[in-house]
């Protein structure tokens, strides 16, 4: 049963600490999205990769957030330093794009981050 795997599922950290969230996309998928979900803002796009290259990270605070794909089986989202306002659920999603834009994205279970 192919699925997107995110680790950790839950993370509690102190303000100022580095946080790394990991995502294993579905094997063979060529696009990866990172979203942040909060009650106030809903689902916000943070980053979007295709074939491991970043296409859109305009929604990501560049001073503290970074997203990478070291290889096709791993995507990472880092926050350094973390702040209480970063508390949210972070979702990774992957998809296989043939006709550009037409594919649905498959979501992981999310990482619930709490920064105290």
């Amino acid at each position, binding site marked *: 049963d192919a699925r997107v795997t995110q680790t950790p599922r839950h993370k509690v950290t102190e303000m100022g600490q580095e946080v790394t969230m990991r995502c294993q996309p579905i094997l063979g998928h060529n696009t990866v999205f990172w979203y942040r979900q909060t009650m106030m803002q*809903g*689902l916000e796009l943070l980053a979007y990769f295709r074939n491991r290259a970043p296409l859109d990270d305009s929604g990501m605070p560049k001073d503290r957030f970074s997203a990478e794909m070291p290889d096709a089986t791993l995507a990472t989202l880092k926050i350094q330093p973390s702040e209480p306002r970063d508390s949210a659920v972070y979702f990774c999603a992957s998809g296989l*794009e043939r006709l550009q*834009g037409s594919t649905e994205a498959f*979501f992981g*279970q999310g990482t619930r981050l709490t920064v105290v």
Partner: protein
Amino acid sequence: AQSVAQPEDQVNVAEGNPLTVKCTYSVSGNPYLFWYVQYPNRGLQFLLKYITGDNLVKGSYGFEAEFNKSQTSFHLKKPSALVSDSALYFCAVRDSYSGNTPLVFGKGTRLSVIA
């Protein structure tokens, strides 16, 4: 830039009654439209999509959606609601004009089906 609006934060419906969750969109080119459902403490699950062709799209769990180009809408429907349909529903759009556009989501609509 593309955008999606879900005008209702909350929809309440009695079990067995038809349900509609509304979605309108804005894109430069032709839209690719999607509906997702989120159950508590879970990720989003894909329900259905419209890419081209028939305006009425059928998806998982008995849901369907109708694409209306003149009204720029893509409302989600189900003929008979179940209590288990209670969840958070998201509409999403991508603009076919540019292949590099991301999937943009609405704010979500919470559906409560009352027994």
